């Protein structure tokens, strides 16, 4: 299994509070991703990173920010959590070698509940 951990695994918070989720990898992969998963929507990309300090928005980035100061860590921050951000959050990593894309490997997920 790819070495990807997410913390915390479960979190309950209140509307308006800041929340940070952490993704940590030991594979030294260049690309890291944050997704959210909601019933009926499959996976939706929030933000991704293609290197240290290099990040870009996905399709559902509003209300989220990210940071990547080290290859192994990718942080997702909800500046002021809302109930619509209640979801399961997945981190993923991938690598591209000689132009060949390798599939994404996923962390175990974080269940976030915003009351």
């Amino acid at each position, binding site marked *: 299994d790819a070495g990807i951990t997410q913390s915390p695994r479960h979190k309950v918070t209140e509307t308006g509070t800041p929340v940070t989720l952490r993704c940590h990898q030991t594979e030294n992969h260049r690309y890291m991703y944050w997704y959210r998963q909601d019933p009926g929507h499959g996976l939706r990309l929030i933000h991704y990173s293609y290197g240290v300090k290099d990040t870009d928005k996905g399709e559902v980035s509003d209300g989220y920010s990210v940071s990547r100061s080290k290859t192994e860590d990718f942080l997702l921050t909800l500046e002021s959590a809302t109930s619509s951000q209640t979801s399961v959050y997945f981190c*993923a990593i991938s690598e591209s070698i000689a132009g060949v894309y390798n599939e994404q490997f996923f962390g175990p997920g974080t269940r976030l509940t915003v009351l």
Partner: protein
Amino acid sequence: AQTVTQSQPEMSVQEAETVTLSCTYDTSESDYYLFWYKQPPSRQMILVIRQEAYKQQNATENRFSVNFQKAAKSFSLKISDSQLGDAAMYFCAYRRRGNSNYQLIWGAGTKLIIKP
């Protein structure tokens, strides 16, 4: 824009039988990747099988195989000799080949139920 459609929200199959999950996609690209991921109740997302569009041969992995119809933009997953451990959500995903910043496009998933 590329899209991925899984038209079967839920499928059920008797244990030891064969089931096929459907996936269609829309793209104007000629070179791309297609994937099937499995998500059991543990929530862990697991890659089942991968297909490169330039390869005419259908990918297989043990009991899992695909029927890749490029002209029809269809990518179905066949599970043979279904086992109770196959019960999960199955997601189809597409990725354009080339620029490493291209993203995976996901279907909404199919829930597979295995009847003992």
